[in-house]
């Protein structure tokens, strides 16, 4: 019974955090960061410094009419945004927020993380197909090609860390940091590959070909009316935050900070540093998005197959050699 209560509570807390702390807040943050990059001011009229702008936007989205395009596949059109959002939410199960603060410390943690995030592509592909719109379909197909290609370098960079730490559990990976000094060359390369691949996995500029608005209107969610569009946004920002959190977990020491906060105890201290680092990584992704132009689809796939994949494979070998060499 206690287990059931624990599960229900975890679901409620994680979902509330993702909806409010991630989706609502990150949309606002994205607008503020883009304004900062482009020397504008950004939203400022609703609430103090425009802080309630996304809340107002959400209320507007909830009131709008729901439209089903002619010839759309009713069931799959409705199911696709739910699949995307649920896949993103599922990945939060293995994120270690602080010492002992985790929904479930699975023995196969990072493997579970990549596998549930890979389900997101199913939702995107069906959304594109069910819309009965050629731009949406092209967006969905591009997205599938892109996410399947970039899953490999992402997986290999995670595998490199797993080789070094000898575990797949996210908690034990945090506890294993700082990694031994002689593994640093390998860890740094893995971190860089992870950053690039994660940008592509979350469909963001310079890798946002699935929704390249100059060619494809809005890609796979062109036909979606407000509420379901909001679910796609929830999934997109949810997975952006989750991959950033995984980067923090694998490469930036997770919940450990440079110093301990006074008076608050280890749990609050851990959550504070974890959130601070994760939002910093999210900020980095936004900075990149508003600074660089978009790639072309063939360039994008070449980067994955001809650059990132060989580099990450060689890096995995290097990690093994470094560990074996150190005895």
């Amino acid at each position, binding site marked *: 019974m206690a287990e059931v209560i624990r599960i229900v509570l975890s679901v409620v807390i994680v979902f509330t955090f993702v909806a409010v702390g991630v989706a609502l807040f990150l949309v606002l943050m994205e607008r503020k960061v883009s304004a900062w990059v482009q020397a504008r001011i950004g939203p400022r009229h609703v609430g103090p410094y425009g802080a309630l702008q996304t809340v107002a936007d959400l209320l507007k989205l909830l009131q709008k009419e729901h439209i089903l395009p002619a010839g759309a*596949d009713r069931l*799959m059109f409705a199911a696709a945004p739910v699949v995307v959002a649920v896949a993103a939410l599922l990945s939060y199960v293995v994120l270690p927020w602080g010492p002992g603060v985790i929904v479930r410390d*699975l*023995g*196969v943690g990072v*493997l*579970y993380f*990549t*596998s*549930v995030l*890979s*389900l997101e*592509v*199913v939702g995107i*592909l*069906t959304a594109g*197909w069910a819309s009965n719109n050629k731009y949406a*379909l092209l967006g969905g*197909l591009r997205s*599938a*090609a892109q996410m*399947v290609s970039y*899953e490999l370098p992402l997986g290999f960079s995670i595998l490199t860390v797993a080789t070094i730490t*000898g575990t*797949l559990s996210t908690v034990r990976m945090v506890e294993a940091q700082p990694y031994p000094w002689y593994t640093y060359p390998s860890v740094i390369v893995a971190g860089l590959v992870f950053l690039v691949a994660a940008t592509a996995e979350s469909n963001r500029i310079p890798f946002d070909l699935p929704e390249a608005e100059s060619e494809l209107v809005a890609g796979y969610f062109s036909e979606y009316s407000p509420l379901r569009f909001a679910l796609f946004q929830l999934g997109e920002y949810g997975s952006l935050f989750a991959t950033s959190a995984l980067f923090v977990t694998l490469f930036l020491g997770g919940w450990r900070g440079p110093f301990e906060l006074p008076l608050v105890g280890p749990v609050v201290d851990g959550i504070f540093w974890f959130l601070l680092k994760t939002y910093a990584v999210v900020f980095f992704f936004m900075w990149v998005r508003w600074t660089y132009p978009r790639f072309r689809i063939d360039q994008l796939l070449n980067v994955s197959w001809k650059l990132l994949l060989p580099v990450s494979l060689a890096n995995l070998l290097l990690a093994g050699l470094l560990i074996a060499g150190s005895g």
Partner: protein
Amino acid sequence: MAEAVAFYGLTAVALGASLMVVLSRNMVHAAVSLIPVLLAIAGYYVLLGAEFLAAIQILIYAGAITVLILFVILLTEGATGLRVRPRNEQVPLGAITCLVLAALLIAVLTRTPWPQTRSSLPEYNPGAVGESFLTAYVLPFEAMSLLIVACLVGAIVVARREE
């Protein structure tokens, strides 16, 4: 109790979705219905304590293979999946084959003396899997790797022939 509830829930999902795969007249629906089946099987693996196998099942089958199947349908069938005829005149013949095969499988499965010992699994699943790959099963493992490399090279050769 909880395990039984999970088992029957998963079985309901697996059977329902499997029927969708077989009976749907739309290829895309059939391909998408395959995903719940594979996820339910991953659920069985979790119930049996094989977390590693479950994660791999979701990653490779539900996340990659089905996407590949969808990709093939969308690229070859004018992106609709409606023009393919999922059934033809050979329905009676197929039904007979299925019934014979099912009877055979049930007969074999019910008569095999399955080991019923409750041996405990090793604490850390993936480690044990890797260990056995490189010790007891090193020869089959290397043979499989060779086969996969050959398939990859073959696929590239076939795909690039037109140039």
